[in-house]
């Protein structure tokens, strides 16, 4: 399909250059052709085609929303009324949502077409999309490799041209890492920018909803739509609005920092080189680029896994077989019902995290783990506050390696956790982060660069990405 972004698509539909129905049919055929990638848990073909007809008329009449006809896939942890909400887990395999998440409702209100729900790691726990009751998702660039996780399906749906854009969720890198592995844009917004109402909680103080797209304009447009204070989410805020279209900055006055701790051991050589070459381009274009330090970096992963598993152990307690979802048939007492339903219903990574989280909150261990980690989290935030008093934006690699092989890390949870080493900090600090695809390695696998900004400074990130695009 030949259009550079959603806004252009709307004008093409308006001018009869393309038919929205044909456009949806094209995406449906792509989904079908690459079924083996396993990107979708559910495809809403009839609904999408039906919506295409209605919205095409709206566009022609001139009375349409900002996302009119944008074909969007949503991660299967987001609640969408009357549609199955599985979180890629057996424990919710039969669960139909009774209400719609605020972010989804905002897409629909702006006339987006929801084409389906995408596969992901179970309850968004994972970095490879291999932990899914629906099976692993494959990377469209190299099918022997993982697409990243946990929003693997959402990344693949965009990368493999199955939709215009998609929504994922990011608790520790679950949007940025798969975006990097699949060579597309993926944004983790500031905590509080997008309502979490309807996002199945994994770690409530870390979870965010954000978009995947092939260009930064669509990222900004979708964020513009889904942002804002929601009375149903006390942690949401009315922050500075997202400019759309992106304000073109020709003055290039941003000061860019690169934290030395993010370029040390364990970083793939080709990724490092690629980022250096971006820094060179920036310098050639008169940007001030300087090395900075985020000294707490070494504690990111430990802090992240203590706090997120603690919250998860409580958030996932509701899946107990008592009221909805999977209930084991092999139980005769209440306790057996709980134990069997949860043992049979959850996958091993989810169980591992529930156990870790239960442990760190237990009496006798709370102070040593949970309380300590809360303190460290504050220090990590302070690191960023200090850094952003010197620079406007921070650039880092998104991932330490390119997409790895399926099965390569499935038996080594620690190695798997380390693939989030550069991304967890943004969730710990509540700041926004965008993956920008900056090229491929010599095997043709995508490399991503992460751009971080102060909380609610997404506009700067978009302006920077736009400039980089011009300079690129």
């Amino acid at each position, binding site marked *: 399909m030949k259009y550079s972004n959603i806004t252009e698509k709307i004008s093409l539909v308006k001018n009869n250059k393309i038919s929205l129905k044909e456009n949806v049919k094209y995406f449906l055929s792509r989904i079908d052709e690459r079924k083996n990638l396993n990107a979708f848990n559910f495809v809403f073909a009839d609904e999408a085609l039906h919506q295409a007809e209605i919205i095409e008329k709206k566009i022609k009449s001139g009375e349409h929303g900002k996302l009119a006809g944008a074909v969007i896939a949503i991660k299967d942890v987001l*609640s969408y009324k009357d549609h199955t909400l599985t979180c890629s887990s057996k424990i919710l395999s039969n669960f139909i949502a009774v*209400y719609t998440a605020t972010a989804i409702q905002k897409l629909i209100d702006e006339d987006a077409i929801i084409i389906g729900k995408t596969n992901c790691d179970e309850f968004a726990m994972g970095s490879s999309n291999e932990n899914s009751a629906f099976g692993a998702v494959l990377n469209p660039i190299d099918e022997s490799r993982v697409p990243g996780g946990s929003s693997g399906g959402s990344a693949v749906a965009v990368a493999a041209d199955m939709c215009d854009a998609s929504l994922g969720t990011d608790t520790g890198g679950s949007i940025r890492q798969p975006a990097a592995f699949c060579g597309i844009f993926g944004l983790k917004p500031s905590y509080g920018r997008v309502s979490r*109402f309807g996002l199945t909680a994994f770690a409530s*103080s870390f979870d965010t909803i954000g978009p995947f797209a092939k260009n930064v304009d669509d990222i900004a447009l979708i964020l513009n739509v889904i942002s804002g204070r929601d009375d149903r989410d*006390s942690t949401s805020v009315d922050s500075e609005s997202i400019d759309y279209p992106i304000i073109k900055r020709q003055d290039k006055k941003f000061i860019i920092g690169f934290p030395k701790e993010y370029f040390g051991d364990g970083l793939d050589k080709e990724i490092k080189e690629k980022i250096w070459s971006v820094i060179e381009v920036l310098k050639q274009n008169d940007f001030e680029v300087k090395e900075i330090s985020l000294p707490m970096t070494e504690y990111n992963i430990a802090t992240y896994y203590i706090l997120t598993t603690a919250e998860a152990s*409580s958030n996932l*307690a509701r899946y107990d077989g008592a*009221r*909805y979802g999977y209930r084991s048939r092999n139980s005769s007492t209440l306790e057996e019902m709980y134990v069997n339903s949860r043992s049979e219903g959850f996958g091993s990574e989810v169980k591992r995290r529930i156990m870790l989280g239960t442990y760190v909150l237990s009496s006798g261990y709370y102070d040593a783990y949970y309380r300590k980690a809360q303190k460290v989290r504050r220090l990590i935030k302070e690191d960023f506050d200090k850094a952003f008093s010197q620079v406007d934006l921070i650039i880092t690699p998104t991932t330490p390696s390119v997409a790895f092989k399926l099965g390569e890390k499935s038996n080594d949870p620690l190695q798997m956790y380390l693939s989030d080493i550069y991304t967890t900090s943004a969730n710990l600090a509540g700041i926004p982060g965008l993956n920008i695809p900056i090229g491929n390695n010599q095997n043709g696998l995508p490399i991503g660069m992460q751009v971080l900004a102060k909380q609610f400074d997404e506009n700067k990130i978009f302006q920077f990405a736009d400039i980089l695009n011009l300079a690129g």
Partner: protein
Amino acid sequence: MQIKNNKYEAVIGLEVHAQLLTETKAFCGCSTKFGNAPNSNVCPVCLGHPGVLPVLNKKVVEFTVLMGLATNCTINKHSIFARKNYFYPDLPKGYQISQYEEPICENGFINIKTTDGMNKKIRIKRIHMEEDAGKSIHDQSEYTLVDVNRCGVPLIEIVTEPDINSPEEAYQYLTKIKQIVQYLGICDGNMEEGSLRCDANVSVRLKGEKKLGVKTEIKNMNSFRNVERALYYEIERQTDLMEYGEEIIQQTLLWNADLNEAFPMRSKEEAHDYRYFPDPDLLPVIVDEEWKNEIAARMPELPEARFNRFIEQYKLPEYDSEILTQSKELADYYEKVVKLTTDFKATSNWIMTDVLGFLNEKKIEVKQFPVTADNLGKLINLISNGTISSKIAREVFQIMLETNDEPEKIVKEQNLVQISDEGEIIKIIYNVLEKSKNQIEEFLSGKDKVLGFFVGQVMKETKGKANPQLVNQLLKSELEKYRK
């Protein structure tokens, strides 16, 4: 009742849960109405569906702050919600939203009267906000039924320091707490219906000993009397163990009111590690000076102030004021009656004997009392303006209890108006004296008591309607005439 062995002293701390009278639940918009069809006051939020979030009902904070101010607590500017994690079918989220570290109110006290009439200060350690769980019903089917209507209904938990030393003091404390929440209008205070619940921590030690003994916790006491009885039971049990040198085990006991006995909970049920941690879905609650003052400005008159005002304004004895201000409804009723009559003390007498007598006999609340304050006021006025005598008034009152008709109407229909016409009374007196020559002789010979006989006869003739003062007065002057 008395503790048998006075070598020992009991140390008691109480935890009272009071259900708040908000229209909607603590963290969602569902109704809190009691008695609706099971599982009808529910939404995805209180059902714990995936992706839902709690949003705090401001009223809950305001009610709690009112209680904190009424009990002399410090209102913390910054307080946080925590999750209390445990599995149970009537707890849909698998955790209860409560407060743990940093509660909203701390370090308060209330005064109670001890059995020897002394004032005693009971310190309040903390008051915090939380949500109620649902109800599990075990006895209506072979299955356990779950009703989640109550799930998310706001509660406050009021925790004392271990300042209570006897079951009577515990009873006094509860009475006072009930009185305060009712005056504040934040809880209906009905322990039998579960809107007020109480758990007790009890230990026993030798008098003079500073160290606290091993404590037990008693739950499931669903009336004030049960709290008293359960405490007696437990204090005696612990005292006996101490006397025989046996060990007191720290445990949780469930009171069985039918058997008048407490039984230990299964240790598995108590072995909870609730894994409290701050609820990441809720922001800290900030009660700044401005909000606190706004809430304080809405503080209604509290029991103690009203007690003093009744003495001052209506010139009532302390005893009357104490009884009338015991419950807000009764005090309100009194004040409605005295809007119509200036006979403050007579009104007090009517309420303390006739009204309360009826309420106690029928075991009903003030709000269910059939005679309106207006009608009682009118009745009292009929006495003070001489229309009817107090004796007749009691008859009228009996009719009012049945019909709540206006007293004037009853008096008219039943022809009960007092006879105060001198001529009419004189005529009757003549008739009586005519037939009582012997009694007149006796009276003249100095037997004053015989006057009563004549009064009785006149009353009999008038079916009790003659104005008694007038009868007395006229009889005396008529009899004097015989001396001449």
